[in-house]
């Protein structure tokens, strides 16, 4: 949340480009950290880092797209921006599907570049807010008893109290009591909010 911990991670095998882009970011008041290779970046990046990543697509060894996948698989949720010498369509589609913020062609104009970086940072920030909320929800979920959880699942599945009671083999009245406890523990003001929370916690997908 705090702007001082927010960094732009640059990964490019071309030292001159790396240096120039770092300067451009600094000139715009952003903090840049440069890495000469994807491997170096993976080895040194803090999993809890905040900010965004600017990746060159074509690099020896691990290329930009592979690096993006590696980040996702490690649960590093940094928004990614791609730079490429010659952007071809299949590459850009793959990048965007992988969650890239943008796919820019070199040489890149400062306005376009900085706008994209800021957007990525913004997305990083909002992503962080989302993640914090999810964490809150998960901690509330953890306070539920198994029975309460079963009731919650029935509620978010859109079933009536009577149906839930029938499924669980308990009285409709008991279901109601559990439901009130769930609403209370989850700090939900309405069923709709509860459903949204369950969604965010991934409960419905499970």
């Amino acid at each position, binding site marked *: 949340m705090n702007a001082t911990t927010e960094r732009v991670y640059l990964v490019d*095998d*071309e030292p*001159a*480009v790396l*240096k*120039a*882009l770092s*300067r*451009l970011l*600094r*000139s*715009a008041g952003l903090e840049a950290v440069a890495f000469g290779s994807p491997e170096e970046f993976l080895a040194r990046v803090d999993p809890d880092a905040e900010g965004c990543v600017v990746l060159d697509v*074509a*690099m*020896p*060894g691990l*290329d930009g797209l592979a690096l993006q996948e590696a980040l996702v698989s490690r649960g590093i949720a940094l928004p990614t921006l791609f*730079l490429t*010498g*010659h952007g071809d369509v299949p590459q850009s589609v793959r990048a965007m599907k992988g969650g890239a913020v943008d796919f820019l062609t*070199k*040489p*890149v*104009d*400062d306005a376009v*570049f900085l706008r994209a970086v800021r957007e990525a940072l913004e997305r990083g920030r909002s992503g962080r807010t989302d993640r914090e909320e999810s964490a809150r929800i998960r901690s509330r979920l953890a306070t539920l008893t198994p029975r309460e959880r079963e009731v919650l699942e029935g509620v978010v599945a859109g079933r009536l109290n009577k149906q839930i009671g029938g499924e669980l083999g308990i009285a409709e009245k008991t279901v109601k009591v559990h439901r009130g406890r769930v609403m209370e523990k989850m700090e939900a003001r309405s069923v709709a909010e509860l459903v949204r929370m369950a969604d965010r916690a991934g409960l419905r997908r499970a």
Partner: protein
Amino acid sequence: MSWTTVLWSMDAAACLTLATIHLVIGLRRRAPANLLFALMAVSAAVMAALELFLMHSPVPEVHAGIVRWAHAVFFVLFLSLVFFVRTYFRAGRTWLLWTVVVVRGVSVALNFLIDPNLNYVRITGVRPLRFLGETIYLTEGVFSERTRIAQLSSLLLLIYLIDAARTVWRRGDRRRAVLIGSSTTIFVAVAAVHTALVMQAGLRSPYLISVAYLGVVAAMAYELTFDVIRSSELARRLQIADAELREGEQRMTLAAEAANAVLWHFDVERNEIWMSERGREIRGYGGGERIDFRRFQESVHPEDLEGFRAAVDAALRTGGEFEREYRVVRPDGETRWIAARGRVETGVGSGTRLRGISIDVTPRMLAQLESERQRSELTHLSRVTMLGELSGSLAHELNQPLTAILANAQAAERFLSQEGPDLDEVRAILADIVEEDKRAGEVIRRLRVLLKKGEVERQSLPLSEVVRDALELMRSDLVNRGVTLTAELPPDLPAAVGDRVQIQQVVLNLVANACDAMEVLEPRDRRLNVRAEAANGCLRVSVADCGPGLPAGVVERVFDPFFTTKTHGMGLGLAVCRTIVAAHGGELGAAGNAGGGATFHFTLPAGGGGAA
């Protein structure tokens, strides 16, 4: 007619005949030896006549006169003999010669001072004698001791002749030595001894001086005639040889002309060039014009002149072979290609000559130039096609510096618009911009070199650098294809001789093929090794991939034109590469690797010396 008259007349006639012959020869050839001989023979003839008169005269006064004049004639005979030996045999001591002449001269002088003559104090009369069936008259008188001086001169003459014979013998000319040493000396000795016996010992015989000297004359005439015969034989042989030579030359010229060739020779000492008619025609020389080396060079194409001269100089200096192809500009401006071959001859007498044959090879050269032009066209086309395929990579190579430049420049703008800008930072940025701009320029330079369609240049090349330059152009392409490159390019290789562009073309082609071959592999397995090395006196560049390798039956065909295993491509790349490498005097080959994949390599002759 009496026998004495017949014999002495024949003697005189023989001498006169020989004298006439050698007088003619002597005058015509300006040969003093022959003239001296003629004089000697004439003297001998006169001597014979005097003897004949003496024999047939019963008058003592006539005898006294004849003896006196005989001395004069004999003096001439003497002189001509000693000088003949001197000039003809080039022998006889000078001091001895003059001693003979002086002593004889003194005797002749005394002969004319004393009455009646040198031989006698007084002539008392004549005595008849039956000789050869007739009566002849012998001189009777008181013998003079002064005659000894004449006898001394005869002795000196003998010594002179023997000494001369010895010199000739030592010189190794045995035949002539025997001739002077035996015949001449014997006849001279016989004459001297016989005369002495007649005068002093009262031998009843007529003088036989002329008869004895006929022997000397005959011996010398034999020698001279031998010479004449020999020289005429020599002349005849020379004539035959000359005729044969001319015929041989005619035959050669005929053969040469049938083969469209020109025969020529260059006489270095006389600075004269001879060539058969066709050669003169091409160069527009007039019929009888004398051609020297300078005149000849006027016809040589100015661009070829230096090389031509150097080749002639080298041949003359080493005395070896001459071989050169050069252009001749005809008077009408047309250019013909001439291939000349020759050899230096250093014959005895004729001096140094460069002799050879030339052929007009214009049609062949034109065809060759045309095929070279076509080859260069194809090579260029293939290069352009290949660069077209690499264009993405090349664009990327240019993009990198351009990206850096733009980002740097815009960063600088932003820094400068800030309050209290960091000028050191801006300076560093400008320095980087300059650096990157140069890098972009370098990429363009490499590209331009490869796209250039120019003359093939043979020069000494640092092979490692040339290969590295080519690899630099492919760098982005290799990265894009995920190919890991290892290059072993030692900087201390000997220089290669060749055309930079074409060698790079071959490297690019081989690397591009290797990358294509590895398309089927996972990117992390795509490994490429490029190495340059010196081996067996030549330079070798190998490109090894780890692709699927070359299936059996493909190795032999990969270099054939229009053969390809790719889905795209014309199948010309390797065929063109092989042509290029062959034109450099090297070889292009392919082989499978033990651990999978294929290695393509080419060799180039080393140019000697270290690379710069």
